[in-house]
């Protein structure tokens, strides 16, 4: 089986979120970059698990980003994955990114394309669906379990108030979230091996972005908390009922 895992860089979850150039750009100074958690913990580890079950599996990683993505793609290779492709361009438009990935994927004969359910920066939850459309493959989003037997995948996904399990013939695109796999830590052997794994850099194809970011805003600062004394709990109920009117 051949698996393609889409990897995105994302700011560390504790990073301070601020903007520069009249709020038109994310302030990257001092920000630590990590592999987008959904891509790492779920999509990538699932691919590794599938390879452990069937050693005949090849895992390719792909990222769309400039050279500052190299440390995270090396880290992804240290966790697992046989080789990586970096498309050398930075974009905020999901369609632009999906079209770059699809260009690689359509010639790669992949049986399974895995993404995280969203990135923790732009939260668009769009790449998987767009990619599936561009590749004309079925798509299962928000997967909580992925198993493959022969050329059939059995995938559970989050639906409104529950879970649904479906069978689909490969090839298939899946966006992964909690439940699909468990986070792993790269070991020394993986880190050493990653240094010599191929990391190919390609230039982007011409694609017109469909959207553009005008600028960013930060939410207004929250007013101070209204504290109620621990021996006056009924007062909290009253405030929620009469002042906040939330029940």
């Amino acid at each position: 089986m051949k698996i393609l895992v889409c990897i995105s860089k994302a700011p560390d979850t504790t990073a301070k979120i601020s903007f520069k150039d009249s709020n038109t750009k994310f302030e990257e100074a001092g920000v630590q970059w990590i592999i987008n958690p959904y891509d790492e913990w779920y999509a990538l580890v699932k691919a590794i698990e599938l390879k452990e079950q069937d050693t005949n599996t090849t895992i390719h990683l792909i990222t769309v980003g400039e050279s500052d993505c190299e440390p995270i793609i090396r880290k992804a290779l240290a966790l697992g994955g046989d080789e990586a492709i970096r498309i050398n361009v930075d974009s905020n438009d999901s369609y632009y990114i999906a079209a770059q990935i699809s260009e690689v994927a359509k010639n790669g004969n992949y049986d399974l394309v895995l993404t995280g359910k969203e990135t923790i920066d732009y939260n668009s939850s769009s790449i998987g669906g767009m990619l599936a459309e561009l590749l004309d493959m079925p798509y299962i989003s928000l997967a909580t379990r992925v198993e493959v037997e022969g050329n059939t995948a059995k995938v559970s996904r989050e639906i409104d108030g529950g879970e649904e399990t479906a069978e689909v013939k490969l090839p298939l695109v899946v966006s992964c979230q909690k439940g699909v796999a468990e986070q792993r830590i790269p070991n020394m052997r993986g880190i050493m091996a990653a240094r010599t794994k191929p990391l190919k850099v390609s230039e982007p194809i011409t694609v017109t972005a469909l959207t553009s970011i005008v600028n960013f805003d930060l939410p207004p600062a929250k007013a101070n908390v209204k504290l109620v004394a621990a021996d006056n709990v009924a007062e909290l109920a009253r405030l929620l009922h009469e002042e906040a009117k939330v029940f």
Partner: protein
Amino acid sequence: MSVLIIIDQTENQIKKSSYEALTYGVSVAHQLGTNADALVLGTVKDNLSELGKYGIKKVYTISNTILNIVDAQVYAAAIATATTETGANILIFSHNQTGKAVAARVSARLQAGIVTGACSLPDTTNGFVVKKTVFSGKAFANVSINTPIKIIAINPNSFHTSFKEGIADVSELNITVASPKIKVIEVNKISGEVPLTEADIVVSGGRGLKGPENWGILLDLAKELGAATACSRPVGDAHWRPHHEHVGQTGVQIAPNLYIAIGISGAIQHLAGVNRSKVIVVINKDPEAPFFKAADYGIVGDAFEIVPQLTEAIRKINTNA
């Protein structure tokens, strides 16, 4: 030119998030001086002409039972055809489970720019700009859609529904629906519970509750409020609660009217999933817990004493009401 709102269903009933999309779509149409129509996929029991109450002129249906299951590929093709046939140039989805499966596919298929997680009406003073949440709710981005057809997927629970009088025309679209490639073999609905992302009130517990055996006080409070229940990540990881209850940056992101956090410290990753809640109440024994900085109301104290008293006080108000 018109606005087409994609209606989503669960067990043959229109979802609450779709009513939000209806109200939003009608406002967009008003703003642009055009009509808002709805597209219902699959078979639903609701009286569709009543969608007129929301300001809808026409309800288009594709009443094919294949569409009672969401196969993103089949859905996207049907919606794209319906868009062309109805001449719609703005599509509205809810950014719920179905929207996340389908809307981006439609975007790629129609080469239509999309904004997901939208939290405001478009600003059309200079182009077509929609505000969306980014960085897991820590900021907003104003995104310009630069294509003739535009798609907006709105955050659930971000827009109130409103309706008046009115009757909509219901008409069937004659669209061929492809056979699905996805074969559903099992559906597990957590019955009797309010779905987390649609809940008006969410009661959530953290490691401060010490163990799964102590969840009773939280469930009692949730029951009294008709609330959904949630938890912090370590609680989900330790299997004290099912993992679909885990809220936060790497879990479910929610925006209820009321979020009650019990024994949760308020780590930045947790806040990222809940900071769009309208009112936040924190119960924590540590006055220095970071959650108090993000809260509207709080009690510093032992959850095991406070929570049952709160449930009781709410019950009193509810029975007198």
